[in-house]
């Protein structure tokens, strides 16, 4: 395999892994439900994106054609992540989940 491609794949995998890890740390560290919602839906967007791109490069250099499947995974993820985040937020507002003290503003009544 081309050394440049190998270098790019390694770099992207490290970036992807680091962002996914930070997302998980955020889930543990952030103070309330609504702020925790940001960790997994966000930092992982870049995490999964970087891992998918490295997968595309890997299979392209192997000469098996460009992986359309990877782009479909990304598209599906980007379409479904906002919807699930929205549902989680709505459910939390419906249940009147407590927010941290320094939160400005209020959620609406459901």
């Amino acid at each position, binding site marked *: 395999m081309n050394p440049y491609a190998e270098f790019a794949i390694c770099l992207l995998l490290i970036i992807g892994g680091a962002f996914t890890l930070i997302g998980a740390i955020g889930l543990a560290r*952030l103070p309330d439900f609504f*702020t925790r919602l*940001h*960790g997994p839906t*966000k930092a992982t*967007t870049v995490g999964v994106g970087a891992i998918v791109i490295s997968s595309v490069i890997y299979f392209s250099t192997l000469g098996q054609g460009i992986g359309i499947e990877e782009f*479909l995974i990304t598209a599906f993820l980007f379409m479904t992540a906002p919807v699930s*985040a929205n549902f989680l937020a709505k459910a939390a507002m419906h249940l009147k989940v407590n927010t941290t003290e*320094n939160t400005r503003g209020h959620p609406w009544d459901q």
Partner: protein
Amino acid sequence: MLDRLSFPQPWLSLTLFITWQFLSDGISGGSAVLGLILAWAIPQITQGFWPDPPAFIKAWRVPAYLLRVVWDIVIASVEVARLILSPRPARPAFVCYPLELEHPLAITILASTISLTPGTVSADVSDDNKLLLIHALDAEDDQTVIDTIKTRYEKPLLEMFQ
């Protein structure tokens, strides 16, 4: 009976058919048949949930918008990562965002964009489609959040849907 056999949303059907061909291992007779069945059945089942299509979409503006969103996701991800790792506590806020967009599809796209870019989640739309409730992870003041979204995302969407 005949309208049961039609394709009420040709573009959705076409997208579904092509997506199915990519998902299955190469185009074959079987995948084409199954793709046709899906392209027919899914629009029929979901028809009640789709808003009326907008009169006109300036499709050539879509790639520029997507590029901007991807770039913002990368930048904002780094900021959120830095915030998570720093000892400083976050300054979360619920922000009421006044919507200028009117079409339901445009509002959906804006809300999804807000949710995808790190640091903000769209939590709810008011019943009259005039306000969007956003939860910001780290906002110094509400007006900055509103102005950023207005200039970066809503203006291009307004141009696209007019």
